[in-house]
């Protein structure tokens, strides 16, 4: 392959990272299967129903909370609806979408002698129907953004003194944060602690930005060279 971006006529030797052969994060397995397997491998979202339901319950709970006055006058109906949506969301994210979209699962197990321990399971061998990068990104974004939104609701409830919603907001925060914590634990595999990973993430978060800036500056430089010729 030459001319990675298709734009600059003279790519410099070290300006752009070469387009590597693997352009998404799946393992490359060299069996040339049937047509549907190839189509499945190329699809950006392999579990459309799971992706839809992952976001559906969370987003509907938030929308119902924001616009409950338009739907119904009754506090009880809104409360019960939002609580049921939050519970379905918790169950489906914990049991279904986590294992379909990112191959992770966590649960609590109680031994013979009554001691409880938490099990965090991660899928080791990706299969044909394994998740794609788009699905994983949707999963983690949905998992992280919604508890933040419910925390904002908590503060707005406290400061506007609409305390009858407080129980619901606290329930929402605890259910969604529990899922977030469980999946982060699964992802880390119990090897490093969560605080160490977040500090490493924050320190190296601006490294890609620096590299991107360097690349765009090189491109502008070359373009300037060719037009003045």
């Amino acid at each position, binding site marked *: 392959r030459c001319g990675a971006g298709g734009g600059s006529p003279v790519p410099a030797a*070290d300006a752009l*990272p*070469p387009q590597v052969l693997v352009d998404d*994060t799946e393992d490359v397995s060299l069996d040339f299967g049937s047509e549907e397997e190839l189509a499945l491998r190329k699809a950006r979202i392999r579990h459309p129903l799971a992706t839809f339901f992952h976001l559906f319950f969370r987003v509907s709970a938030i929308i119902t909370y924001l616009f409950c006055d338009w739907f119904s*006058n*009754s*506090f*009880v109906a809104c*409360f*019960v609806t939002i*609580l049921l949506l939050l*519970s379905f969301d918790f*169950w489906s994210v914990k*049991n*279904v979408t986590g*294992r379909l979209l990112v*191959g992770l*699962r966590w649960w*609590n197990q*109680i031994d013979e002698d*009554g*001691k*409880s321990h938490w*099990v*965090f*399971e*991660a*899928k*080791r061998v990706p299969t044909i129907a394994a998740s794609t990068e788009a699905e994983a990104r949707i999963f983690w974004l949905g998992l992280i953004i919604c508890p933040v939104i419910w925390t904002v609701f908590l503060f707005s409830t406290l400061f506007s003194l609409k305390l*009858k919603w407080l*129980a*619901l907001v606290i329930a929402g925060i605890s259910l969604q944060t529990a899922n977030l914590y469980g999946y982060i634990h*699964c992802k880390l*595999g*119990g*090897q490093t602690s969560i605080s160490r990973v977040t500090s490493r993430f924050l320190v190296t978060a601006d490294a890609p930005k620096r590299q991107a800036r360097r690349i765009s500056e090189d491109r502008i430089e070359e373009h300037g060279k060719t037009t003045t010729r």
Partner: protein
Amino acid sequence: FAGLADVSISEDIPVEGEITVPVGSHSPDEDYSTLDEPVRDTILRDLKAVGKKFVHVMYPKKSSTLLRDWDLWGPLVLCVSLALMLQGGSADSKDDGGPQFAEVFVIIWFGAVVITLNSKLLGGTISFFQSLCVLGYCILPLTVAMLVCRLVLLAGSGTVSFIIRLIVVAAMFGWSTLASTAFLADSQPPNRKALVVYPISLFYFVISWMILTFTPQ
């Protein structure tokens, strides 16, 4: 691999990959890997577990297998139905029954959490969520009592109906307390059983009181 000895990667090509570390070296794949089961199996399995627990509350026999897979769906359903039935019952409710509904929720869940903390502080061996599960499921007799009370109140609200309601609520209160202590008191050393049974009976007494003093508008 002798020919690869002098292959080198230049500095600015990012080398990345993904290493998945197996979690917990002791889990064999056949028993623990529920990662690949179809969704319908998951739903049915959980529904069956909830149903089995309801049956166990009606006939409380001590079985350790019941306690082992806990879930909070049953308590949620019972709590919501009890709160819905208890709604609109006080004389001075001028708005849409908002605070009373949330009150019932808070009383039930906060009360259950406090009892669980109490039993753990007394040195119980049962885990936090197991205890919440048992306390929540044992609200079932009181929910049945609430249903019966509402039906009796449809017929009339005189002295006779009050006596009927009193008997029904007292019987269900006794059933709830017995069912929950059958599961919970065993996890305590024998000289502490009364210290654990007392908060549980107080908890169910408060709920029975709310049910008995319910008068519809």
